[in-house]
């Protein structure tokens, strides 16, 4: 069958967008009515989706593989943890600081990208990822060291104006994470359609041609790492509110980086919704494979499923889904953007 063609900005396209938003809102409302455990799981998925969206900017769109994003996730989490526990800050007010610090760290990690590339850059990010738990242990006074940092549930109470009580903080964080994810997706979407976004993809596709076109590789790479770190740091900050107890060996080791990378490629690198799909996959796939078998066997099945997905859908689940949908509906750019001017 021939696909239906829809122009961006047309009434039909608006309609599709509104339908998509309505479906997402419906799914979120449905999720909110579930039992507390399920709400928590979904919150975790949304936080993961934000973290992977951050990684997507550097690794998906710009082709800079980072094995150190656990450090951004951890820095965001510990910034919120320390601010709440030590300085008695309200959790939500710590988010800007967490994002800012992670942006600065990202920019600094991006600096070596000016001289080195490919796997050597990945090694630098690996070093940052390895170093983070050690740094946390080292600064025991601030971070609680190996023993960990515990945020009391009273300190995580929803703000008063919401009228929610301390036991309802799960549902509060659920909606905060949903809002943060929505903002992240809108920002990523706008960014990747901007000049910078085009320059990012150009840098990934053909670095020499990009440089020869006048793209400032140095600026693009450091900016992207800063933004990437900031978004993953936002996820880390929410994660601290979600788990309430932080320890260096818990969620901030290289294993977290690998989970993020797995989620990115499962979901679909360099796609807007790939990270959301990937977050569902990394959170729920282990549960499904655990149902099939127990112990080590479940881990083996999980691994086999990962390999199968990567082989069968090299563009990720979102990439394949996008192509499948493309058979029925095509969204063409608006006249003055896409067609002959």
């Amino acid at each position, binding site marked *: 069958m021939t696909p239906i063609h829809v122009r961006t900005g047309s009434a039909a396209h608006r309609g599709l967008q509104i339908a998509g938003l309505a479906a997402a809102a419906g799914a979120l409302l449905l999720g909110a009515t579930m039992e507390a455990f399920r709400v928590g799981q979904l919150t975790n998925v949304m936080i993961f989706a934000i973290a992977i969206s951050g990684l997507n900017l550097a690794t998906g769109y710009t082709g800079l593989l980072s094995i150190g994003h656990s450090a951004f996730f951890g820095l965001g989490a510990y910034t919120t943890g320390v601010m709440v526990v030590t300085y008695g800050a309200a959790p939500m007010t710590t988010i800007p600081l967490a994002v800012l610090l992670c942006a600065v760290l990202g920019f600094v990690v991006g600096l070596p990208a000016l001289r080195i590339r490919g796997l050597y850059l990945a090694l630098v990010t690996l070093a940052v990822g390895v170093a983070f738990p050690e740094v946390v242990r080292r600064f025991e006074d601030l971070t609680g060291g190996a023993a960990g940092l515990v945020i009391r549930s009273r300190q995580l109470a929803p703000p008063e104006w919401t009228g929610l009580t301390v036991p309802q903080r799960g549902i509060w964080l659920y909606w905060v994470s949903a809002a943060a994810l929505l903002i992240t997706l809108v920002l990523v979407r706008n960014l990747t359609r901007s000049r910078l976004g085009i320059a990012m993809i150009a840098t990934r596709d*053909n670095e020499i*041609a*990009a*440089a020869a076109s006048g793209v400032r590789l140095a600026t693009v790479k450091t900016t992207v790492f800063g933004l990437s770190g900031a978004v993953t740091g936002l996820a880390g900050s929410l994660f601290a509110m979600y788990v309430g107890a932080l320890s260096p060996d818990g969620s901030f080791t290289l294993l977290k980086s690998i989970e993020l990378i797995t989620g990115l490629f499962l979901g679909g690198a360099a796609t807007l919704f790939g990270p959301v799909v990937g977050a569902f996959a990394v959170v729920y796939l282990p549960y499904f494979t655990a149902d099939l078998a127990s112990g080590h066997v479940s881990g083996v099945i999980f691994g086999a499923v990962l390999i199968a997905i990567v082989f069968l859908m090299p563009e990720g689940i979102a990439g394949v889904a996008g192509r499948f949908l493309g058979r029925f509906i095509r969204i063409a750019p608006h006249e003055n953007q896409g067609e002959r001017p």
Partner: protein
Amino acid sequence: MTLLSVQNLTAGYGQARVLHGVDLTIEEGEAVVVLGANGAGKTTTMRALAGLIGFGGRVEFEGSPLAGLRPDAVVARGVSLVPQGRGTFPHLTVLENLHVGAALRRDKRGIKEDIERWCGVFPVLAERTGQAAGTLSGGEQQMLAVARALMSRPRLLLCDEPSLGLAPKIVAELFGILATINREQGVSLLLVEQNAELALALAGRVYLLEVGRVIASGTAAEFREDETVRRAYLGY
């Protein structure tokens, strides 16, 4: 007036020196070709001039030195490179590729005018503006790479073996367009080629490069008539 003057250009990769002192000049409005076998240093010369690798010697563009400039600064000065192979971005649309070529420009109206202009010169692109560059044929991609390089409004266009891997008919078409751009748009050309016959038809002057040095130079007519040069280097 001399547009580009290169004296004693040396460059290489790490310990391996590829260029051992290349001299060449390009006058305003000229089309010049550099011929040479594989490994003679043609691509290295282009990369050095585009600021992609460091170099020694004197390189002056419109009277001021290019040494130490980053690639984007070289573009800003008016030198643009069509790299060897496919100088396009496969995941971006044709239109986005052209916008990358205008990365340093802020004049929206001018950019739009230039896109229209180059789509007129390369009609294959006009029909495919919304298509991903990776879905284009080799010839179309090379046309796109040239159009992309022209989007920065260069005074000098460096083309690194544009004929590589293209069908003869497409190469002839591409060279015809390059000649038109050179004559009608006043863009000077420095072309690196192995396809000597076509290159000599396009260029006014020729440099012959061997193992990182210029071993002969002259007008295209002289080259075509010189039997020794023709036999040894041009193969006909």
